[in-house]
């Protein structure tokens, strides 16, 4: 795993340095690009006066000591920036994933039980739209409808602009507000999660529902399901208690990887909803060619994929006794 992460860091470092763009503009501003003293001072401070190879080895040496460098734009250690922003992204991702799984399974079961009927077609359409709709467009659409026009739900941000964030315990506003007994902020943060989590989770609904539907239909053709039905068990019991449990096994892998995708792919959703997470940090870093931040986000994404892969393997083994961890 460390070697893989070093490989990722190396590739991103070299690719970012080969980009025909000048990061100095985000450090000194375009007005000072012709000011030799300011430019020289900035290059010396950020090590940009060194050759790419010196910059690379310096970065790698620091990285091995747990130092991801300092962001050009926030002027803080990248590790601190990621630590501050990760809870916001995790909170959004967990909610989106929960929404995606719950609705995806429900929709998948419904579609399987009513195969080739109107419900199945509607579920397929819903899943298709969720999987194909660009997040930024969906985000703007739901903001316009539910925030601007109807006023049912709050707009961008994690909490109301006037509210104060709960004391930092976990960084999850919902959990921290509950732990501190601040129920007003809890409600506020939950309501602010509804729209971005729905937009982000809609794609998951599409994937999970189609997968559950297909798996359930496979299970329905199994002998044990026919036996259960022949014994007179209620259809709900047959599906929910027996068939669904087996049908969910392949979903575990997908859900694990979907989590990693959501974590690294919340970029557009976070941007549209002014969500101060890793995604919006990545967008800002990319636009300003903030090398340390870009590499930091990439390493975080790599770690997320590796961890979810591991968790997926473990979960699969736990769910299916035929699989043994070695």
């Amino acid at each position, binding site marked *: 795993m460390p070697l893989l992460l070093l490989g990722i860091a190396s590739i991103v470092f070299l690719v970012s340095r080969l980009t025909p763009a000048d990061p100095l*503009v*985000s450090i000194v501003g375009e007005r*000072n690009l012709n000011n030799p003293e300011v430019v020289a001072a900035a290059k010396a401070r950020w090590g940009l006066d060194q050759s790419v190879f010196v910059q690379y080895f310096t970065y790698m040496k620091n990285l091995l000591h747990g130092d991801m460098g300092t962001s050009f734009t926030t002027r803080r250690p990248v590790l601190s920036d990621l630590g501050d922003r990760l809870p916001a992204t995790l909170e959004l991702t967990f909610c989106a994933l929960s929404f995606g799984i719950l609705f995806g399974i429900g929709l998948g079961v419904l579609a399987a039980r009513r195969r080739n009927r109107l419900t199945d077609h509607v579920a397929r359409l819903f899943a298709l739209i969720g999987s194909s709709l660009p997040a930024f467009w969906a985000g703007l659409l739901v903001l316009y409808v539910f925030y601007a026009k109807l006023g049912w739900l709050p707009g961008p941000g994690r909490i109301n602009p006037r509210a104060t964030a709960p004391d930092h315990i976990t960084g999850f506003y919902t959990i921290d507000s509950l732990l501190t007994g601040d129920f007003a902020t809890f409600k506020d943060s939950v309501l602010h999660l509804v729209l971005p989590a729905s937009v982000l989770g809609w794609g998951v609904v599409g994937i999970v529902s189609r997968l559950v539907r297909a798996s359930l239909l496979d299970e329905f053709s199994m002998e044990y399901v026919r*036996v259960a039905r022949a014994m007179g068990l209620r259809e709900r019991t047959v599906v929910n208690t027996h068939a669904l449990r087996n049908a969910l096994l392949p979903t575990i892998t997908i859900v694990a990887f979907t989590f990693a995708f959501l974590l690294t792919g919340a970029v557009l959703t976070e941007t549209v909803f002014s969500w101060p997470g890793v995604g919006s940090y990545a967008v800002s870093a990319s636009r300003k*060619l903030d090398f340390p931040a870009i590499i930091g986000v990439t390493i975080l994404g790599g770690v997320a994929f590796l961890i979810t892969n591991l968790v997926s393997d473990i979960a699969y083994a736990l769910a299916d006794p035929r699989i043994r961890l070695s």
Partner: protein
Amino acid sequence: MARVVGSPQRISAGRRLAALAVVGAFTIAACSSDSDSGSSAGDSSGSSSDKALVIARGMDVNSLDPSRAYCDTCQIYMTAVYETLIGLDDDNTTLVPRLATAWESNAEQTEFTFTLDPTAKFADGSAVTSADVKYSWERLAGLQGSASYLVGSIEAIDTPDDGTVKVTLSASNSAFLAQVNAGYLGIMNKKVAEANGATTDPTTDKAEEWFLANSAGSGPYTLKSYAAGAELRLERNDAYWGAAPAFPEVIIKETPQAVTQRQQLEEGSVDIAMQISNDVAAGMSGSDVVVEQVPSFNFVYLALSPGAAGGEELTPEVREAIRLALDYDGLVDATVGGAGQPQASPIPNGFAGTDGLAAPKQDLAKAQDLLTAAGVTTLTLDATYPSLNVYGVDFSTAMQKVQTDLKAVGIELQLNPVEISVWADKITTDGIPVTMLYFAPDHTDSSQYVQYFGMLEGSQWQGWTRADPVPEQADLLDQALAEQDPAARADLYQALANSMIADQLIIPVVNPNLFLASRSDIKGMHYSACCNLDLARLSRG
């Protein structure tokens, strides 16, 4: 192995409890009174900051270290937290006392003496002394941050006593008082800064991270907290030596989209929306919101670079033809819906030297004649520009309009919108024949425009256009900087403005108005040339 038959699983007591806990939590939350939630759409109340001033704006903070900060939001922050020696009156022209009660200069404009207010003190209660002023300006120069050019002409700072600062400049500079008035020249508490790693040497200075979480100024507000990309919180300096500001807390929320700013303002979750564009402002109504349109000193311009690769055919005649081919009123309409005006020279309307300058006008026939005389029948030019939307002006919209105008006289622009980092790389290496950029003032003197846009040896745009320096402009600027009489100085700047117009290298296309949008109970909304928005002047009533 999968279970085949059996009775339905019973939900365990633990699961039931967990489910109940979740449902209970949501129920409690749902039952919480809206009045103390500050959460629902349209709810303007807050849970713990009822009297806080909330501002929505897209923040562009590069640093909160007073010696490194350089951005529009930084101007607001610096003015609120780090006071300058001199302030600016409502007319955006008259200098007024701030930390200094009096100031004087010699006839040559090379020596300036400031007398500090003996009652001025920092937020920690210690007095503001001449040593703090000397340290602040020397650190600004030493760290070579983006605003360091403002103190570039300082040769020496003497502190004969705690209350007197004597500044000696390397050359005459009648703009120095205006520069002192710029927020970037705010004064920090030397003792506190040094205790937290500040030095005047960029190789040893370690204070920037400390300044991102703390402040050391004498202003009406102090820094409470800052979360990049989320919010900037200021709290009232209870030890403030001047008139106490009205708000106990000011929260600037990161809100990049103008539409969202408008929605939050209309629903009352913010008090001020700072970057409302003309199209967003168009539909704003209601008695709870006030939108005022005021002229600004910001502008967007077209830059022609004859020395750039591919710009060789941009001779003076061709450049003049381009200037005459542009439909300036149409550009103002296309970019800001008429909420702005054309600008004659790179010195914006309202600054010294611009009185009586005629607004540019389109003259297609003359433009065509010039091109014919120059032997140009068709001309294709690279027009790489940063993909920006600044002061409500979308650069793509503006460049498309420019492209349309120039096509009428046979000039084809190849539009190429790019990220600003890509643009920066290109303009500093090969140069760009036709591009677009923006400018907002750092202080109130016209010299900054000449130093940036003029064809002075080594100026920003002399470097980028690769055009020959114009010695006449350097001479005129030297005279203006040595001149004490405001009227005579204005004449010199007008001569400089005309000289820059004659260069045909920098062509302003629109001077957009600024929309001051706030809740109707907010008093004191204004636009400051030096400081953007002075938070201490705002109140609720």
